[in-house]
């Protein structure tokens, strides 16, 4: 096919997808429902353009193969979600709540009524999940993303309190500063892993607790004053030029709290995807993750790539902190149980470590949280049921062997039947 056509179709797809995402993510259903649906349709249209381009380039057989492949990769998570929702329903019924009313409230709240809260929840989760997923690719488990999150939040607050340049220069500087701090926080685990073999699960986990308890010290040094009731456990507000623009600045009806951090998260996810699958660095990191000895035999330095992977993972988790401070709160609260790091692990596992998949699972998790709150408010069902459903989803999705076992059992049964039939005929 002609190259120009291909480029043009690509451009159309990107534009449709971008506008669709902005409309969809920025929409508040209560007043801007048209934007909400327009956004969805535009995203669907972008997907359609992609399929058309793919067919024109590779032919129909390839398209069918692609569809089959993506269906197969989606079927396990979807089955996990459905079964988990059923189990959660049974659990609610046993413990005396109405599962149908609860789930109605959950999905209505999460997808429609409080969609903007889902989006707000998703943004930091996407960042921390990208962090965990990236480390996974190098065969490392960055279980302490929570700690890097605090470092990023502290760095972003500190820089945003004092950096008074125009936003277009200032915000990127804060972004980079937060990322660098997060990366620096992982230097110790990376160093210990390479030099002594200390397991990163323990070192990053312990440093996460350290970072958690450093944040109150930082807050007290930057405006938090337990002696006053005005702001005992919170820093000063950051300078206005360092706040991320909110959707309401360019979209009518958008909720004033929804900020562009979610778009940033999606862009970073795409960049990470590119880094992992299209660059030399990504290739080396994946090679080390797959098989250390083989990578070493190819002349790839294992230590160097462990460093790279953990430092980039630290930077990504720190961006979640940047997102919360510069986008949502505009100050740093003392919150020792933020949990974005821990939840990021689930989101990354659910997406199978795929950076683009993380965007979707992040939105799913954010939706479940927002919907769960709405559900507990309107139907008095404890929102912790959502935590259990999440845990079950995760278990069913990561335990892929269940499905292999089921299909094997099914095949064996079929074989037996056919042999029985054959025997009967004979």
């Amino acid at each position, binding site marked *: 096919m002609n190259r120009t056509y291909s480029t043009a179709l690509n451009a159309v797809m990107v534009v449709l997808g971008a506008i669709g995402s902005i409309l969809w993510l920025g929409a508040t259903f209560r007043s801007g429902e048209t934007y909400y649906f327009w956004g969805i349709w535009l995203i669907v249209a972008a997907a359609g353009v992609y399929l058309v381009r793919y067919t024109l380039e590779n032919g129909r057989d390839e398209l069918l193969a692609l569809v089959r492949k993506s269906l197969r990769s989606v079927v396990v998570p979807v089955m996990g979600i459905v079964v988990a929702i059923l189990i959660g329903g049974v659990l609610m019924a046993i413990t005396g709540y109405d599962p149908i009313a609860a789930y109605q409230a959950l999905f209505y709240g999460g997808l429609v009524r409080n969609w903007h809260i889902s989006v707000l929840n998703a943004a930091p989760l996407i960042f921390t999940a990208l962090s965990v997923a990236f480390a996974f690719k190098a065969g490392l488990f960055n279980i302490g993303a929570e700690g890097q999150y605090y470092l990023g939040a502290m760095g972003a607050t500190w820089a945003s309190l004092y950096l008074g340049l125009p936003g277009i220069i200032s915000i990127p500087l804060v972004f980079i500063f937060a990322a660098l701090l997060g990366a620096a926080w992982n230097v110790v685990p990376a160093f210990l892993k390479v030099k002594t073999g200390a397991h990163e699960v323990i070192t990053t986990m312990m440093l996460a607790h350290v970072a958690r308890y450093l944040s109150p010290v930082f807050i007290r040094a930057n405006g938090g004053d337990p002696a006053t009731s005005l702001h005992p456990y919170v820093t000063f507000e950051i300078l206005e030029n360092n706040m991320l623009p909110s959707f309401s600045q360019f979209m009518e009806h958008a909720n004033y709290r929804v900020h562009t951090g979610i778009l940033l998260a999606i862009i970073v996810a795409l960049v990470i995807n590119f880094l992992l699958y299209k660059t030399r660095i990504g290739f080396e990191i994946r090679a080390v993750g797959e098989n250390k000895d083989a990578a070493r035999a190819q002349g790839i330095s294992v230590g160097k790539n462990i460093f790279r992977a953990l430092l980039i993972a630290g930077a990504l988790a720190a961006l979640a902190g940047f997102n919360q401070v510069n986008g949502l709160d505009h100050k740093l609260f003392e919150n020792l149980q933020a949990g974005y790091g821990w939840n990021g692990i689930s989101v990354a596992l659910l997406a199978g470590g795929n950076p683009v998949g993380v965007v979707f699972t992040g939105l799913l998790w954010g939706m479940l949280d927002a919907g769960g709150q709405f559900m507990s408010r309107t139907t008095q069902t404890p929102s912790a049921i959502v935590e259990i459903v999440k845990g079950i989803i*995760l278990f069913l999705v990561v335990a892929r062997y269940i499905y292999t076992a089921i299909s094997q059992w099914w095949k064996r049964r079929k074989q037996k039947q056919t042999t029985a039939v054959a025997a009967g005929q004979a």
Partner: protein
Amino acid sequence: MITFDFIVNLLVATIRLSTPITLAAIGAVICERSGIVNIAMEGIMLIGAFFAAIVAFYSGNPWLGLLAGIFFGAIFSLLHAFATVSLHLDHVVSGAVLNILALGLTRYLMVLIVGHPGTSDPIPVGLSDYQFAIPVLSRIPVIGPMFFNQTPIVYMSFVLIILFTWFLFKTKTGLHIRSAGEHPLALETIGVSVYKMRYLGVLVSGMVGGLAGAYLSIENNVSFTEGMTNGRGFIAMAAMISGGWHPVGAFLAALFFGFADALQVRFQVFKIVDLPEEVFIIFPYVLTVIAVAGLVRKSRPPKAVGTDFMIERSED
């Protein structure tokens, strides 16, 4: 300021604070010796702590609470065994998922059973009411109050350290468990099921983990608080590694962490140095990192720990 009493108190507190870490660590030793990485310890402890407090509250009997803690810890650990041994799931992934599940489950049941989130209502009788001094021995200065004037689960932890060491190194089953972690194929060849040994290892760690949780909620405390384990399961992992995958080594390492914790509390209370209290809180965590970094090279993990073992069934 630093008197004789201060030091004795510090050492007694060391034992008390190290007990949950000791228990979780010796459980993890058995588990990892059988070849299964158990970072679900945090979740197991949380489940144990929750059910111990609930049963102790409603029955009014802390001993029933203790049994409930052990029982539910074991049940929860079976999930880990099922996922890693039977479903061949990555051990670290399964552990992380179970930790998350435990947090959600206890939160939900908290609202359901207790009626409000946060901290459960105080139990009428705690195990700390059963503190007893062993005659004669408890009179020995320093050692006496440390080891012979304690509460029930602390005594149990002493017994379990000896019992587990004997079990691992002197019994046939212990040998089989160790073989499952060192060379599973060889074990299978002599006709012992690796699956069974690994299930057993995880189950034992679940029971001891549940006991550690019960210690937190009904002996060292009188109620359950959400997330009350606060990273102790991971510190126990560090103790296990620093202790060279040996129950006695793990106990000594746990004592070290308990000492750091006890010291930290005293620094906070007596304001010996004028620093923010958080600096003292992070002290044990920093120490854990240093310990893991410094001692890990000297100890060797079981050869097959963390690896999957799958028996190919012949199709018939």
